[in-house]
């Protein structure tokens, strides 16, 4: 077959389609979003009847995938690294239930925090849950590993974690496809108690998981993705995980590394392979994108063995994404950095789009709060987090999905009045609703501003689960309907809007303000599509 030019994300999606996946579930999050989007927009999605859908959050997506696996079909669930925190309850327990149909959990990590609030390394989550992990080193491997991962998952009846990073997710290269495999038939687990984690069952299942660990290690030892490449210069041996291998070989003429190299793409770590490398070399350099996981394992707490170089001894920076230069310096090669950036070049942070409804909402909120001292606005994850920057300087927190409402409640409990939460519509249905219920039950004095632009904006305008439901949800959670106020965030309604904001900020109880106007990006896209459709209709007529 002809090679396709695919992003790492798209290669995973195409791999799923071709490997007989029946469903893919996700909540949008950079850099994972394009996996599910690719399936949604692919022709095969329809002809093969693959279900591709956004869940309200990563936990619901993970559980839905587990249900599909229970029914015997191959399924994938995708999220960004911090999404795995949200899905953690289901994820960790899915290791105890095990899988029936193949189940791959894709976590897209973001070292260097290009679009995230931390750079946690999802391999720790896989290790914590005691399941196999796959870490592709290029787009072709990302595609191949989906086929391999489903087989591994069905062989051991265990979910498999696929860990990627931003660089692979958003880099394009040629990928060779395989024939499309037929989807699994509906088939219940042989043991209908497998998924019942009552303590008596769970203990048995957990023992089973523990007993399987040597088999997982054995699979890693034999994996086509773990390769020990022997070379004569044994003064140093190198362990390179995932993309780090590419950065390593980039530094040598003809990609020929003089030292022995252990390339790792499957975990648990292949103990015997690591031992062979360790025994044959004087020192070991560990190159891994993310946290020093293998490096810590090798050093142990006493670090009394051979010298282990990596992120912990400063050979490689402790934080941030790897690149060819960092690896060159770690190898003692020359720094090839070119000319300095001239001092007149200034930073250009992202900003809210021209015509974005959030611009009005923040300006109005700043004005409504101007009589109070600053420092009382708790915000959340989305485009509106840019309210932290000039010219708005309007918010004081951004922690995790939904934390605006609950942090505002905690601050109000402590006596900070007024206390305001700012959250987007999609973030509200992701993780804000439960916090609002807490606030209602405690009759907290907080004002929650739900910025409703009708979409999941920051990740590129995916459908929001909240559309048409926000007032109903707030009222059902117990917010008094007189204190659920909908605004049109436009300057021409400013006086009316400002009065409403001031009234609700002064109210002693839970109030909700909903500035509602469509995202300028999705609006532009919709208009363009409508125009195109009109043109085609006209041409056909």
């Amino acid at each position, binding site marked *: 077959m002809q090679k396709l*030019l695919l992003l790492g994300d798209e290669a995973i999606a195409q791999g799923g389609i071709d490997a007989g996946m029946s469903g893919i579930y996700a909540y949008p999050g950079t850099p994972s979003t394009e996996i599910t989007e690719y399936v949604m927009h692919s022709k095969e999605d329809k002809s093969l009847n693959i279900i591709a859908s956004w869940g309200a959050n990563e936990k619901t997506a993970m559980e839905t995938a587990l249900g599909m696996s229970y029914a015997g079909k191959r399924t994938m669930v995708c999220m960004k690294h911090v999404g795995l925190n949200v899905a953690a309850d289901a994820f960790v327990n899915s290791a105890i239930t095990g899988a029936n149909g193949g189940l791959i959990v894709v976590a897209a990590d973001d070292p260097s925090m290009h679009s995230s609030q931390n750079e946690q390394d999802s391999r720790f989550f896989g290790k914590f849950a005691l399941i196999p992990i796959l870490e592709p080193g290029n787009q072709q491997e990302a595609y191949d590993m989906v086929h391999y991962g489903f087989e591994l998952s069905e062989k051991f009846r265990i979910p498999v974690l696929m860990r990627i990073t931003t660089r692979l997710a958003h880099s394009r290269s040629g990928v060779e496809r395989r024939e499309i495999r037929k989807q699994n038939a509906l088939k219940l687990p042989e043991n209908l108690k497998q998924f019942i984690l009552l303590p008596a069952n769970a203990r048995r299942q957990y023992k089973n998981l523990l007993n399987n660990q040597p088999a997982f290690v054995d699979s890693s030892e034999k994996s086509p993705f773990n390769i020990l490449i022997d070379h004569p210069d044994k003064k140093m041996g190198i362990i390179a995980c995932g993309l780090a291998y590419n950065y390593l070989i980039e530094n040598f003429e003809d990609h020929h590394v003089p030292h022995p190299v252990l390339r790792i793409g499957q975990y648990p770590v292949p103990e015997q392979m690591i031992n062979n490398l360790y025994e044959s070399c004087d020192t070991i350099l560990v190159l891994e994108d993310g946290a020093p996981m293998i490096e810590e394992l090798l050093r142990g707490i006493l670090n009394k063995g051979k010298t282990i170089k990596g992120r912990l001894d400063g050979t490689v920076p402790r934080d941030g994404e790897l690149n060819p230069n960092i690896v060159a310096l770690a190898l003692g090669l020359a720094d090839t*950095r*070119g000319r300095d950036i001239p001092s007149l070049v*200034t930073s*250009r*942070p*992202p*900003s809210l789009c021209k015509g974005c409804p959030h611009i009005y909402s923040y300006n109005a909120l700043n004005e409504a709060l101007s009589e109070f001292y600053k420092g009382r606005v708790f915000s959340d994850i989305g485009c509106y987090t840019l309210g932290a920057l*000039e010219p708005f300087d309007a918010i004081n927190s951004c922690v995790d999905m939904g934390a605006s409402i609950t942090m505002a409640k905690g601050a109000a409990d402590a006596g900070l009045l007024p206390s305001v939460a700012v959250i987007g519509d999609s973030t509200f249905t992701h993780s804000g609703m439960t916090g609002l219920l807490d606030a209602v039950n405690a009759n907290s004095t907080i004002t929650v501003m739900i910025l409703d632009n009708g979409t999941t904006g920051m990740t590129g305008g995916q459908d929001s689960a909240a559309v048409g439901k926000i007032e109903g949800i707030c009222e059902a959670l117990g917010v008094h309907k007189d204190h659920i106020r909908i605004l049109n965030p436009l300057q021409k309604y400013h006086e009316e809007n400002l009065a409403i904001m001031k009234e609700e900020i002064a109210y002693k109880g839970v109030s909700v303000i909903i500035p509602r106007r469509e995202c300028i990006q999705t609006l532009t896209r919709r208009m363009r599509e409508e125009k195109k459709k009109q043109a085609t209709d006209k041409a056909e007529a």
Partner: protein
Amino acid sequence: MKKDIILAGVGGQGILSIAAIIGTAALKAGLHLKQAEVHGMSQRGGDVQSNLRISDRDIASDLIPFGKADMIISVEPMESLRYLPMLSPDGWLVTNTKPYINIRNYPEMDKLLAEIELQPRHISLDADEIARNLGSPKSANMVILGAASPFLSIDYLELQEAIRNIFRKKGDDVVQVNLDALQAGRDVSEKQMN
């Protein structure tokens, strides 16, 4: 043959359409390709870049090593300078001189242009003006690509063919104006080199 190219600009300026045309032409020529893009938060008016690597041999890293880029192609003057650490000592800087000002402390234009003039191998042109004069302000990207074309080691005819392929759906007029923009950029480049 290998060409490592940094494409630079501001989120929303469409540097990926330049990448798409070079990429299409490179694949047609049977070359290997890797292209790292920026998605997510920075696309909202922030600085964005793409690492485009083309080679007749296997490409290892998705990222170009510092000091090894053969050229920087930028649709915005200040952004062209942000990636100088990536540029090889004998690499080319090809940049638009029309600024995109969405920050308060944008540098003074004369100082910025002087800094570009200091670069040993550079081509600078007001691609927006050239595109406007051709009656197609949206084709500034193709003007810049045209200005970069003498350094790409890709047959000019292949670039034209890629433009035809990519813009075909939009009609013959759109194809032609983009071909004209490509040629106009190339003309400026050839004049500046002589």
